[in-house]
């Protein structure tokens, strides 16, 4: 089908402004195919059904809109207390001096920009592959754009149970930076890994992570997106899960005029478990969109989506979440909840929860609510001497608890709770 003229022009302009790496090595065919995909799909437009609640213009336009950088004061950097392997990117550019040695027992870790110098690589089976699978039944052109033009990223091949997390640390230092990173993680049978991500990566960030989880492997992902309010981000996670494997991803977002986090999960092995959760807080022109698509294509799998948003002073929260249960995916256990806490009458929460089920023996539930602070609970706390503001914060954290509790690791969970509390106590920023 031919693209509408406006969309075709926008897409062509954007593609013309981009450049492929000179020596793409083994990524070459994947990049070329992705360029073709983008051309065929066209970049997102404001008329697209999938972008009904979020305007894609600033994510699509050739130049990244200017975004002031943010000074967090003397707070400790995120995940500073956790023993981890740090990989640092500044405005999308690898910072070798600030990074740890790319070596850890139980895994092989490389930069995309280095690894693509060779003609053969294990990541050839992952790079762009999961993204391409995720293009059906819904187009995700920004992810294809990323596969085509990503300048760097991290490739991790995990063969053992790795206890030390790998941490992608992003810094935003230039007001006009436009970063595009693409990460691939492949966990072999029985392997385990936690990936952490923190910080705003650039004025505009397009990030893709593809995660192949083999049978009985376990992958955990905990991310904070940075408090730079003006930055924009479109992120995609694509994952495919083998038998008895586990995937868990949690994202905390505080501030940001534009964040679109897409997560595309395919449960292809029996008894697999996938959880994706998010806690988002923002005010004013905060715009935060969680878009999730989970496909159950095996027996006895479990999926959970838990998304909570705290919105204030006219902030906007979006949730689009779908559970697709294919014929034969019996005994599916699918749970989806998306809720917003509106701290005033100006804020809005737009939700589109969807279930599409072609198997008969499944248990799926979904719910979406929008509400204010519970006045009765607030009075109860105040009657015990807790000042209004502190009581409101406590109830707000309680509202977020179901999402935060999706983080299994206690130290990581406590750090996230501290950061959420800090945001509430500062009132903003």
């Amino acid at each position, binding site marked *: 089908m031919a693209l509408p003229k406006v969309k075709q022009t926008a897409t062509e302009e954007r593609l013309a402004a981009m450049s492929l790496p000179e020596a793409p090595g083994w990524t070459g065919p994947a990049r070329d195919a992705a360029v073709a995909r983008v051309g065929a799909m066209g970049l997102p437009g404001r008329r697209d059904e999938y972008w009904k609640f979020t305007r894609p213009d600033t994510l699509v336009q050739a130049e990244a809109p200017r975004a002031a950088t943010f000074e967090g004061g003397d707070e400790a950097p995120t995940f500073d207390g956790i023993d981890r392997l740090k990989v640092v990117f500044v405005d999308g550019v690898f910072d070798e001096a600030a990074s740890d040695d790319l070596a850890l027992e139980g895994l092989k870790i490389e930069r995309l920009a280095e690894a693509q110098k060779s003609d053969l690589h294990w990541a050839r089976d992952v790079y762009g592959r999961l993204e391409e699978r995720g293009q059906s039944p819904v187009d995700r052109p920004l992810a294809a754009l990323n596969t085509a033009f990503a300048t760097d990223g991290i490739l991790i091949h995990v063969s053992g149970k790795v206890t030390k997390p790998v941490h992608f640390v992003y810094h935003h230092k230039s007001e006009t930076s436009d970063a595009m990173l693409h990460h691939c993680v492949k966990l072999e049978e029985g392997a385990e890994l936690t990936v952490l991500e923190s910080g705003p990566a650039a004025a505009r960030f397009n990030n893709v992570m593809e995660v192949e989880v083999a049978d009985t492997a376990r992958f955990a992902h905990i991310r904070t997106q940075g408090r730079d309010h003006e930055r924009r981000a479109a992120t995609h996670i694509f994952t495919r899960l083998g038998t008895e494997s586990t995937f868990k991803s949690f994202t905390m977002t505080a501030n940001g005029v534009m964040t679109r986090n897409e997560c595309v999960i395919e449960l292809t092995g029996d008894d697999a478990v996938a959880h994706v959760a998010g806690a988002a807080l923002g005010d004013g022109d905060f715009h935060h969109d969680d878009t999730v698509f989970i496909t159950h294509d095996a027996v006895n799998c479990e999926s959970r989506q838990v998304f909570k948003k705290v919105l204030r002073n006219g902030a906007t929260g979006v949730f689009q979440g779908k559970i697709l249960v294919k014929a034969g995916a019996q005994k599916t256990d699918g749970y989806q909840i998306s809720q917003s806490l509106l701290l005033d009458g100006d804020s809005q929460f737009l939700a589109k929860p969807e279930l599409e089920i072609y198997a008969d023996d499944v248990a799926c539930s979904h719910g979406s609510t929008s509400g204010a602070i519970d006045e009765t609970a607030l009075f109860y706390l105040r009657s015990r001497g807790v000042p209004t503001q502190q009581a409101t914060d*406590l109830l707000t954290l*309680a509202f977020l608890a179901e999402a935060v509790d999706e983080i299994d690791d206690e130290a990581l969970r406590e750090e996230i709770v501290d950061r959420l509390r800090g945001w509430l106590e500062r009132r903003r920023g």
Partner: protein
Amino acid sequence: MLEIKNLQVKLEEEDKQILKGVDLKVGAGEVHAIMGPNGSGKSTLSYVLSGRDGYEVTGGEATLDGEDLLDLEPEERAALGLFLAFQYPVEIPGVGNMTFLRTAVNAQRKAKGEDEMSAADFLKFIRERAKALKIDADMLKRPVNVGFSGGEKKRNEILQMAVLEPKMCILDETDSGLDVDAMKLVAEGVNALRTEGRGFLVITHYQRLLDHIKPDVVHIMSNGKIVKTGGPELALEVENNGYAEFLDTEEA
């Protein structure tokens, strides 16, 4: 201690007068009971004293140790030493009972300019108070009142009272929904707190709680007013004859 003069209260949203001139004076060390039929305004009185929204004071006053209560925020009233054990304790999903208790205790210490209690000290303190009320570790860990039985909720109210050590305690139908054993526990909890400096206002529909918590003074409330005041024998009279003889003619 607590002095209420000609207190008149209507609903904020509706043109409905609920308290029609209540007079009451509870001295330090005294236990007063308020009895009365359902709908007479007992809970309204307790809510207005603790500062709940939705009511409008149209006349009269209420003071605690001379301080005007009605102008204060609920948390300020609590800091002055006022405590209400709710008729219907509120469930707060997502907030652990222990966190709730520690937050309350530390907020009040802070209001008084005292240091906050450390987590370890607090744990010791709370365990001791909880034990007396047969509240186990599990009830402390669970979210506030969520999934608690009626009796557990009421014991949890008394636990809050025991750790906050208020000087003026209002108990709103703390006996409702309790079996005999649970009521004894609650009564023991209250009696343990009876001291010279502390006042109690025990609201109850039935006389039986007053067998365990012996009141100094009993008031009968009907149709938004205190219609009779007497000694403990008044409670027995109600037990034997019901409320009929005390009711306003317009009501009866």
